[in-house]
């Protein structure tokens, strides 16, 4: 039995030996080449030689490619929707991609092309304040033509004007704005009145989620330790982060969530969570027991912003889109569907004709009292961003 086996075994061994040898030689050779490892480094961001501007084909090529978040537009197939009306009115064919799920993830998807001064094949992207500020800072966004977005300049609500990262609206126009607060299921628990309650009350233990966006969640923790999220120091940041670590290691949190907390809240898997205003209002149509409240600490005010990336070839069409959505009656129609804060002045009056109850809703048209209770997260430098996001990720990953 062993004898006939031997030659076969030797021959496979020798062939494997050859392969192993070949592999080792190839690996060694490449490793020598690898002394050139530095060529795999990432160069500092440099301004594109042509300013990142591509030839605008808008007039001849009536197309527009948009990347936006989910649940952020009225039904596109309905001929009466703002979306369909825009296409009818302008003759622009819009490719609307719902491919932004997370700011950091979307950024990771496009950064290599942007850094290499190549087009990202989109004419408009919609990103949250801090990421918008970052992209503008890196020089990856095209300035808008003020003459083509007159409605934006005229109708933007005051609470979203003069923001430190783009005070003159050179680069962005808010698409929708919203508040971060607390949602709870009134069927299952008593009102959760403050963020402090949310992270300490025993009956909520293991049944709450916090948002995985750093600015949202850390804003509240900064408030809880007595700091101002709009202007805080490194030591206050450390305090807030320690508080988060403690809450997390106590097993008080079920998860850090992205867009997916509402279904669980409605089912009763969660009894309360940190939440975005518009999501909760939308979900209330199905489950009136879901409540959104302004915690005692206040609310985070943010917006998701339309921007034209470098080398977009339909900037004119993108500007036409922006201007269209800053008409009060169009904005009201959209707000009636998405239920976030409408960034357009005059839309509240237009809304009374569509649905008076929504026109009265302070989460869609916040009044001065509501706005006085909000904050916008501190504008961070590149280094701060890197430090804070890194430390935040270390905590949620630990």
């Amino acid at each position, binding site marked *: 039995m062993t004898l006939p086996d031997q030659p076969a075994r030797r021959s*496979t061994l020798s062939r494997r030996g050859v392969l192993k040898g070949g592999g080792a030689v190839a690996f060694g050779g490449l490793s020598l080449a690898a002394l050139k490892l530095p060529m795999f480094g990432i160069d500092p961001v440099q301004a594109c030689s042509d300013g990142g501007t591509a030839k605008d084909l808008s007039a001849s090529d009536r197309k527009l490619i948009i990347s936006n978040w989910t649940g952020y537009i009225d039904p596109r197939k309905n001929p009466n929707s703002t979306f369909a009306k825009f296409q009818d009115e302008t003759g622009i064919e819009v490719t609307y991609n719902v491919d932004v799920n997370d700011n950091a993830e979307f950024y990771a998807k496009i950064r290599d092309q942007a850094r290499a001064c190549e087009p990202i094949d989109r004419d408009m992207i919609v990103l949250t304040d801090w990421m918008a500020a970052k992209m503008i800072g890196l020089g990856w966004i095209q300035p808008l033509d003020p003459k083509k977005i007159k409605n934006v300049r005229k109708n933007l609500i005051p609470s979203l004007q003069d923001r430190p990262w783009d005070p003159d609206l050179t680069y962005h126009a808010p698409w929708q704005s919203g508040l971060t607060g607390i949602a709870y299921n009134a069927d299952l628990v008593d009102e959760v009145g403050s963020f402090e309650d949310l992270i300490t009350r025993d009956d909520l233990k293991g049944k709450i989620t916090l948002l995985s966006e750093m600015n949202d969640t850390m804003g509240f923790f900064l408030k809880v330790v007595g700091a101002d999220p709009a202007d805080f120091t490194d030591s206050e940041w450390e305090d807030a982060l320690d508080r988060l670590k403690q809450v997390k290691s106590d097993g008080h949190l079920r998860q850090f969530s992205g867009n997916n907390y509402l279904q669980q809240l409605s089912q009763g898997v969660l009894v309360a969570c940190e939440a975005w205003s518009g999501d909760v209002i939308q979900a209330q149509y199905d489950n009136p027991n879901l409540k959104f409240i302004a915690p005692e600490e206040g609310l985070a005010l943010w917006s998701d912003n339309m921007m034209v990336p470098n080398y977009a070839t339909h900037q004119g069409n993108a500007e036409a889109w922006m201007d269209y959505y800053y008409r009060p009656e169009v904005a009201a129609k959209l707000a009636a569907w998405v239920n976030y804060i409408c960034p357009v002045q005059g839309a509240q009056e237009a809304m009374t004709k569509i649905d008076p109850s929504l026109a009265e809703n302070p989460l869609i048209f916040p009044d001065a009292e509501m706005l006085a209770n909000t904050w916008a997260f501190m504008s961070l430098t*590149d280094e701060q961003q*890197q430090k804070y996001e890194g430390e935040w990720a270390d905590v949620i990953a630990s």
Partner: protein
Amino acid sequence: MAESRVAAPADSGRRRGLTAYVLMAPAVIVLGLFFVIPFYSLVAASLYDPGGSDKAGWDVTYHFANYWEAIKLYKGQLLRSLLYGGAATLICLVLGYVLAYAIAFKSGRWKSLLLVLVIVPFFTSFLVRTLSWQLILADDGWVVDALQFVHILGQDDKLLATDFAVIMGLAYNFLPFMVLPLFASIDKIDPRLIEASSDLYSNPITGFFKVTWPLSLPGVVSGTLLTFIPATGDYINAELLGNTETTVIGKVIQLQATNANHPHIAAALSMILMFLIVAMVLVYVRRVGTEELL
């Protein structure tokens, strides 16, 4: 194959050798482009200057301390991933062996149908199947209710968002990768050998360990590898079925690469995970002694 080579004349053997290299060329080129170059890019990234940022870029400064830093910060998650992967593999091995044995020896004319049924879960998306476990294991679902009723679980205990749910999800998702190689091995076993063992007065248990188990070892090895390696790197199950304290290394790598913007830590962790797995696989294969597989 080896026997026929020995029998063939020498010159045709040489020509066949040359043909083999020509036939290997496409695979070698593909591996070179899509494995070796990305691999070096990963090595380079793991040696970046940790002070880099988007604006300043990242230089390869041969900063080997990145590895130490990555281990110091995330040894817990590395260990947890290996434990989850190991536990899931063990569960799959026990369940899968019984299943594969039954299909191979006891299923008669249902054999093909049963094999198809093993693969059927692949017809729907991995994500959807994992999400549906969220419903099954939910705190007020019937599974938890029933277990609470018979006092296996206390009133405040839960299944979803626990280590148990994560391991179970992994075992569920990777079971077919265990069953198929096991089946292939067990199905090839000549039943007459098992009959012979009982003719020689061995009881069924001894017969199993002396005959069936050794002959099925190639299946066991490839099955465990096919299960353990992806289960260790998987983070969907931990993300969907776990809680904030069940973070696995895959999730850490993803967070470090995107949100935290630390390509050096992400790359160092990937390299560490790769080396750990390769080392464990080599030791394992040496010990089990089925080198034919590699």
